[in-house]
């Protein structure tokens, strides 16, 4: 297979072509087009000219209060979501690696919501929050539960956390399960014999042993939180509306939904494109930080 002279055989190009062609056609070309469009007055209407406007779209985006709010609310969601998903997932992982009788059934059940699309889960939970929980609240005479949690901006944000946790915890759980199962049992046993109780063993032996899994899971949840779209759209659609810097706006509209609405609801395609470029830069920074962390850990090991 090695070619000393003329390294690349016809097979090299022939086998690479289908993947490279579709990749270039679907990602590379639209990606550069998209960056270019973000500096123009592009409307995607046929027959209209595309004119260069410099940083005008970016200036508009930085003055757009809804985008600033979306950014902040996405960061808030990401922080809460990372903590909740990982705590729940780690708890589940301990449960399904214990000696419980039905642990395999639990594992499958906790994992199952992960297989269903966020759009469908979002609608189901909208019914639960708007109808089922309110009916339950009314029947036990709780005024708080009788009004939909989705009508309050803070509870609505937490509602998204609940649904996303329900969807993702089983998945992150499996990453912890893999880490727990590969942790040397002898260490835990030795501590057990030395009289360490369950919490001591957990805190001082198991948690340090599965630390690499924490890093993986944290970044995975971070990236997924930032990219959250489906559940956001189907569950709250950005609502309820509320005030931010003297402006009424959708209070649970995350970045991806804000970009979507800028383009489709407000028909500001070029501005939506500028927002998505900023979105891309944010995600790239997260990815680079992750690479840095992984590199540093490799050195330590």
């Amino acid at each position, binding site marked *: *297979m090695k070619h000393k002279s003329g*390294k*690349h055989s016809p*097979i*090299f190009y022939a*086998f*690479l072509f*289908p*993947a490279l062609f*579709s*990749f*270039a056609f*679907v*990602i*590379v*070309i*639209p*990606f550069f*087009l*998209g960056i270019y469009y973000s500096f123009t007055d592009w409307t*995607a209407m*046929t027959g209209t000219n595309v004119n260069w406007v410099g940083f005008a779209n970016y200036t508009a985006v930085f003055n757009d209060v809804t985008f600033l709010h979306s950014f902040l609310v996405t960061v808030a969601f990401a922080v809460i979501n990372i903590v909740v998903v990982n705590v729940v997932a780690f708890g589940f992982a301990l*449960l399904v690696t214990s000696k*419980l*009788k*039905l*642990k395999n059934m*639990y*594992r*499958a059940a906790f994992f*199952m*919501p*992960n*297989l*269903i*699309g*966020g*759009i*469908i889960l979002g609608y*189901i939970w909208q*019914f*639960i929050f708007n*109808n*089922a929980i309110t009916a339950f609240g009314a*029947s036990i005479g709780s005024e708080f539960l009788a009004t939909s949690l989705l009508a309050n901006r803070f509870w609505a944000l937490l509602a998204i956390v609940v649904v996303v946790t*329900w969807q993702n915890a089983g*998945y992150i759980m*499996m*990453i912890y399960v*893999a880490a727990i199962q590969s942790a040397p049992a002898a260490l835990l046993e030795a501590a057990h014999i030395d009289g360490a109780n369950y919490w001591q063993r957990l805190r001082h032996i198991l948690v340090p042993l599965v630390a690499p899994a924490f890093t993986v899971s944290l970044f*995975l949840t971070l990236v997924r939180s930032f990219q959250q*779209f489906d559940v956001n759209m*189907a569950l709250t659609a950005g609502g309820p509306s509320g005030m931010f810097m003297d402006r009424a706006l959708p209070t649970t509209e995350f970045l991806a939904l804000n970009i*979507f609405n800028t*383009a489709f609801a407000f028909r500001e395609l070029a501005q939506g*494109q500028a927002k*998505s*470029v900023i*979105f*891309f830069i944010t995600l790239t920074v997260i990815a680079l930080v992750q690479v840095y962390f992984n590199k540093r850990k490799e050195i330590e090991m």
Partner: protein
Amino acid sequence: MKNFFKRNNIIAELFAIGLFLLYMLPFLMVIINASKPVLDIIMDPLSLPESPTQFITNVQAVMDSPVVRYASSFLSSTIITVISVTLLVIISSMAAWVLVRTKSGLSTAIFMLFVAAMVIPFQVVMFPLISWFHRIESVTGLLNTPFRLLQNYPGIIFAYMGFGSSLSIFLYHGFIKSVPLELEEAANIDGCTKAGTFFRIVFPILKPITVTVIILNGIWIWNDYLLPFIVLGAGNDVQTLPLAVANFVGSFVRRWDLILTSTLMAMLPIVIVFLFLQKHIIKGMVEGSVKG
């Protein structure tokens, strides 16, 4: 002491069962309310269904709905998922193989390009993608043919090939690196062509990672909403199940009986597949993203 542990175990067992039931409660709510007429749902979403045939009535209503077109949406989802995944498996394994077996700067650069692209969010390319597809259709004259890209199978399948190739090539690349060269060299000496070597010798060896690639891409494509929304559009002839359900919710003012029945019918295929292939699916999905 022994009794203490026994009691603790029972508490743990009960706690786990409680958690399990709580976790399954949303599914139960869907099943219960998909078996009730809309008035009963509005009166009390927590009541149990009264008529055993109401579920069938609801399913029939969803089947007959001109918005959901369940049978046709199910078929479209299946066609798009099966063809996209099959093509992804073929093109990604081929590309990864030549990228691993050819040691050159170009080969490394191309591989890095595929990997780097994984960080690109769909939002950056989605708007230009539509107008780019539209331009290609118009320029090539595909627009009024059965092979047009937008609102049609070729465009969305092609898009999935592009968007799925990065992770798939990455997974195959990692696996092929650990496949010994000897077999391929032996096949070469025996007069097997390179293409023959790949399809007869190498590809069968890749089976474990192929399973992972199929599961990851299959579940992603089956559930995906945004890409079908962009490429197929809402309410056109070709629509996937998530699109159909979303359109349905948009077109009714909270007819929860039919909405919940439609979500149940959209979930069912994947839940059934999961029950049969549980171990493979869990393993495949976790492996894929941890490496990616």
